[in-house]
Every structure is written in structure tokens, then in C-alpha cells.
């Protein structure tokens, strides 16, 4: 009983984390058609920066949530800079984009190693969320429940952003038909920078939120990137609903796969993606932003 319950909670938690990571990835991919292979690096950098804010090494100590927001902003700025300085000049050249994003991810990994060392860093769960609630035989770890709440809040916020704001309308138009969007006078250039920054910021935020559970270690970037890819291909590129459903699905497969089929854990993780590609190549919710 406890086994199923614990794993179910964990699956949803992990799905929530994946949603924060992959929603940005999906938007970037859907809108700009850029295979952003630095997305895992953004996640890792967010976590490392957050841990530094927490540690007080910068002369001030911040609380967990402030640290998460600060690192999200920093990563968003880094992402926007990268878009402006590097990717901007490579529009329509996927080969060069692959090379540049891979090159940058190599550099980022090495810079993190330089800055934070190879020693895994563990991050304390934020104050007040370290414990768990017991309900009969069941145990609900508080922090994991909090992640679920955060993911839902972000999902709603992103939905409102896309549905109710001018920016959202522009993004939707861009995903639907980039050429048309340009024709009707949407300043695609600015939009790209904003979306790339937003996506990067979300990834950075996810990194810090995930840190108390995953801890931070060299290689975290490469553990997360394929997961984001799978979610996006499964759910459909550019689709918010797709990344939400895809994240939860992958969260379940990831957790139950490891517990029930440890030897084939990675195989079952990627299998649904292959099936979806064969049956429905555009992904479960491909072609719709929301």
C-alpha cells in the first residue's frame, strides 16, 4: 500500500518538476524551431546559482524561495544574452545551432565544474517543508507536495499568459505560422529573445526547486536534457498542455520503471515516445499551443 502511494506521489512530483523544465523547452522549440541542447545546462546552472545564494557566499543570505527566483532571473538573462549574441545570427541553420548549443553546454558544464567543484552539493529543503504528514499508514513528504502545487500554479500562470495577454497571442501566432506572424507585424526578433529568456528562466527555476530532491552534481544537465526531450516529443512541440500531460506521464514511467523494471528502466522511459512517433508523429497535442 505504502509502496504504491509513495511512488505515486513521487511520480506526480517528478512530473511537476519536468513540467517546469520542459514547458520552456517546448515553447522555444515550437516557436523558434531551435534544438536548444543547452536546456539541461540551464537547469543545472539555476541549481548551482541558487545554492550559492543560499550559502551566503555572496555576502548576503537569502531564503530558499528568494534564491530560486534570483537564480531564475539570472538564468533568464543568460538565456536572453545567448539568444541575442549567438543564436540570433544562426536563424534557419539547424546544423550551426546544434553545434553552438552543444559547444555552449560543454563550456557551461566545465565552468560549473570550475566554479562549484565536482563535489555534489545537497540543498536543504526550505524551512517548514522538511517534514511529512502522516495519514494513517501513508506518509506525505511536505516538500514534494509543495512542488506539485508550484507546478500547478505555474501551469495556470503560463496558460493565462498565453491565453490572456498580448505577448501570449503573439507567441501563439508565431507557433502557428511564423511567416504569417512576421507579415502581420509581430516583432519576431524581440519575441524570440523574450521567449528564450522565459524558457531559460523556467529551467533555472526548476533546477533550484529540484535541488533539495535531486541534489546538484556535474552531469545533472545531461540527466535532465533527454527527459525534457522525451516530454516534448511525447506531448507535442510548442504545446503547453502537451508538456503538462507528457511530464506527468514520464514522471510515472520514470518512477515505476525504476522500481518495477530496474533493468529496463530507461528502455520503458523512451518507449512511449517511440510509440507516439509511430502512431502520431506530431505528438499527443502537437499543433496546439494550449
Amino acid at each position, binding site marked *: 500500500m505504502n*509502496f504504491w502511494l509513495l511512488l505515486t506521489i*513521487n511520480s506526480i512530483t517528478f512530473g511537476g518538476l519536468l513540467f517546469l523544465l520542459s514547458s520552456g523547452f517546448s515553447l522555444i522549440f515550437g516557436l523558434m524551431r531551435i534544438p536548444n541542447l543547452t536546456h539541461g545546462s540551464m537547469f543545472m546552472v539555476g541549481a548551482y546559482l541558487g545554492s550559492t545564494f543560499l550559502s551566503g557566499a555572496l555576502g548576503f543570505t537569502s531564503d530558499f524561495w528568494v534564491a530560486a527566483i534570483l537564480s531564475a532571473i539570472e538564468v533568464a538573462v543568460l538565456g536572453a544574452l545567448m539568444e541575442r549574441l549567438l543564436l540570433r545570427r544562426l536563424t534557419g541553420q539547424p546544423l550551426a545551432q546544434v553545434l553552438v548549443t552543444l559547444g555552449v553546454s560543454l563550456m557551461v558544464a566545465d565552468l560549473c565544474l570550475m566554479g562549484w567543484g*565536482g*563535489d*555534489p552539493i545537497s540543498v536543504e529543503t526550505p524551512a517548514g517543508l522538511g517534514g511529512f504528514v502522516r495519514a494513517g499508514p501513508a506518509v506525505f513528504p511536505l516538500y514534494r507536495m509543495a512542488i506539485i502545487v508550484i507546478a500547478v500554479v505555474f501551469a495556470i500562470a503560463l496558460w493565462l499568459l498565453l491565453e490572456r495577454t498580448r505577448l501570449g497571442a503573439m507567441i501563439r501566432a508565431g507557433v502557428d505560422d511564423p511567416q504569417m506572424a512576421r507579415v502581420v507585424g509581430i516583432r519576431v526578433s524581440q519575441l524570440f529573445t523574450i521567449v528564450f529568456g522565459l524558457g531559460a528562466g523556467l529551467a533555472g527555476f526548476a533546477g533550484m526547486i529540484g535541488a533539495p530532491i535531486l541534489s546538484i552534481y*556535474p552531469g*545533472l544537465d545531461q540527466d535532465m536534457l533527454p527527459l525534457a526531450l522525451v516530454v516534448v516529443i511525447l506531448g507535442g512541440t510548442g504545446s503547453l498542455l502537451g508538456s503538462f500531460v507528457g511530464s506527468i506521464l514520464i514522471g510515472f514511467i520514470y518512477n*515505476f520503471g525504476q522500481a518495477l523494471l530496474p533493468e529496463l528502466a530507461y528502455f520503458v522511459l523512451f518507449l512511449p515516445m517511440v510509440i507516439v512517433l509511430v502512431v502520431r508523429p506530431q505528438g499527443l497535442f502537437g499543433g496546439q499551443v494550449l
Partner: protein
Amino acid sequence: MSRKMSGTMTRRRLLAATTAGAAAALTRVPAPAVAAPAPFRVGLLTVKTGPLAAGGILMQQGVLTYLKEKNYRMAGRQVDLVIADTGGSPAGAKTKAQELIERDGVDVILGPLAAFELYAISAYVIAHKMPTLSLAAADNLTQRTPNPYLLRASATSSQASQPLGHYAATRLKLKRVITISEDFAFGYEQMGGFQAAFQRDGGCVVKKLWPPLVTPDYTPYLAQIADCDGVCQGFAGSNPLRFMKQYGSAGLKYPVVAGEAGADDFLLKSFGEEAIGLVSAAPYTLDLESDANLRFVHGMLKNFDAIPGQYAALLYGNCQVLDAGLTAAGGDSSDREKFMAALKAVRLTDTPRGPIRFDHLNNVIGTIYIRRLGKEGAKYGLKLWNKTVHTYENVSQFWTWPEKEFLAHPVYSRDYPPLTKC
């Protein structure tokens, strides 16, 4: 990056700059009549990146502490240290061993850290007749398939976990235990040794769990821990920290016993309250009040402001063995067979872990300490401390089995000893 092109490999030549400085200051002394012997080149295979990096960096510090203490000299020869980072992977270990031997021309190798690394380079060091003083606990290389160029002054994987099994069954009176350890050779051999000894004394292992070395979240495994009265964890590097933390936050209350790396003293500064009560067995303990240990600990504190655990202590011990062996060989390491014989014959009483000697298969015989983690006796500004509660002296790799009987069964593995109904 834990899974890299070939491991993130950083290496540095530490050309004993300090010694050079010290030597320069002393050059007022008349030059010796004979030409100075060639430097003794020591290659250190360690891990500076990945989940095992925490231990690997301490290995390096242990070596440097010894070399500084001896002013970078062994048996009258200047010591050149070449450090290579394997990235904690077998492939990386292989590449780096090739570099040390073929390019840097080292006279001896210290390390590597992990059992799977040592298995990967074993045939290669035999082919190149390279004396290797490893920390890695790849059991079979001093058992059924001995490597004549390997000298293990640390311990086999099961050397401490066998006494732990005995202690858990006879003193802690545990009956049904679930084992959990990394899914690599060190984990298998450690847990196998625990299981064999534990079951011989009446205990029973009911389930074995094997998370991969890099497991961001242990929950899928923790969810399977139920219906037992104890857990034996054999984690290494910094993984014990995350495991104990997640174990606590999953609400699990079964007592936990740990292998040699699972409660390493260097982790004491990072463990939280959740680790209190953890019982572990190890070939070295910070708690040991001997002159040799105090000298070593103070050296570590002075040089690196680091509180050592076994990774540093056992490498320091390796250096002591190396120094004694080289001295016994008259400072001559060119004849590899003679040099190995001299190393094997070394007996020491003043190592940080206590007295050591070697068996005929080149493995160490020494003391194993059983410790309980708590607040009592904490020193060096620590809040938590591993307090020695029992010692087993002169423990060999065969524990209390006769050598023949021990070697007749297969090496401990994922499936050996098998799970039995109980």
C-alpha cells in the same frame, strides 16, 4: 558531467614546487659526491569529478599530507607526483593508466578508487608490470584471480562488511535485513560479504536493492523497503548523505548499518540528525587515539583544513607502505619483481589505522572498527562523531573462514550469495 566523452579528465603535474623551494634554501650544503638518484615517479589515479569525487579529492590530500611530512622524499629519492583524474569510470581509469605508464613513465601507481576501475585496468598493469597500490576493493584481484603487481593496503570490499554481518547478527540481534548499495562491483562485493557473514550467524537478507551510482532520487527504492527489521546500506562517495536524508524524510525508522564508506568520517560534517544511530564497520576510524593517527589528522587539518576519512587515511597508509618498501629495496625500484617482493614484506605498526601486514595474496590484514554514529566524543569542531563500540583485530580478507573454503565459493556478486527463503 558524469557520463562524458571519456570522463572529464583534469590532470596536473605537481612538480613538488614546495620541495624545490625548500631544496633551494638548503643548497648551501655542499653537493653530495655521487649524482642524485633519478626522481621516484608516483602516479596517482584518483577521481576529481562525479559522485565519487569527494572521496577522490581526499585520496589526493592523504598522499600530499604524507609527501609534505616527508618533504617529498622517499628512501633518499625525490618524489615526483603525477595526478590523473579518472572521472570515476572504468573507461577513464583505463585511459589515465595508459597515460601514466606510457607517457609519464611512472614507477608506481597509487589508486584507483573504485573496484570497477581496478578491474578495468588490472590486465593492463600486469602487462606493464606496474606496481599498483590501490584503494579499490576489487576482491577477486587478491583472491581467485590474483594480480601479482597489486598490493592492497586498504581492504577488500567485503573485508569490513563481513565483520559487520557478524556484529549485526550477534550484537544488534537483527534478523531480517534489506541491503541497498550501488549497482557496481564494490556494492556487490560489500553486500555479498555482509550477507554471507550475517546469514552464517543466523540473520537473513530478505531483499537486495541496487540503485545506479548516479541516482538523483532514491524514492523508487525507498518505497520498496518494508517488512524487515534493519537496513544495510553500502553507499560510497557522497551518496550516503543523500540516501540517509531521503531515508529520514520518507519516514523510515528501521535501524541502518553501513559498510566502510557508508558512514565515512569525512561525511560527519555534512550528516544531519537523521544519521544518528548509524552503525558502520571500517578499516580506519577518526576516533582512534594513536600517535600515528593524531599526526595524520593534524597534518590533514593543517594542510587542507579537511577532516579526513578512510579515503585519505588509507592513501596515507599506502604511501607509508611505499616508503618502507622502497627503503627496504635500497631505493631501487627498477627491478619490478624485487620491488614488489620488498613491498609485500612490509609490516607497519604506526599507520593511522593501526598495525598492518600482508597475506600471501598481497592483501592487508588489519583491524576493523565498528562505530556508532552519535554526538558523544565529537572533536575537531564536529557535532556528530563515529564512536568506536567494538574492534575486530587481525581481520583478513577471508574473515573467519579457512582460505580454501572461502576461495571455493564464487566471488561475491549481484546474485551470490543468492536470496534464500526465510
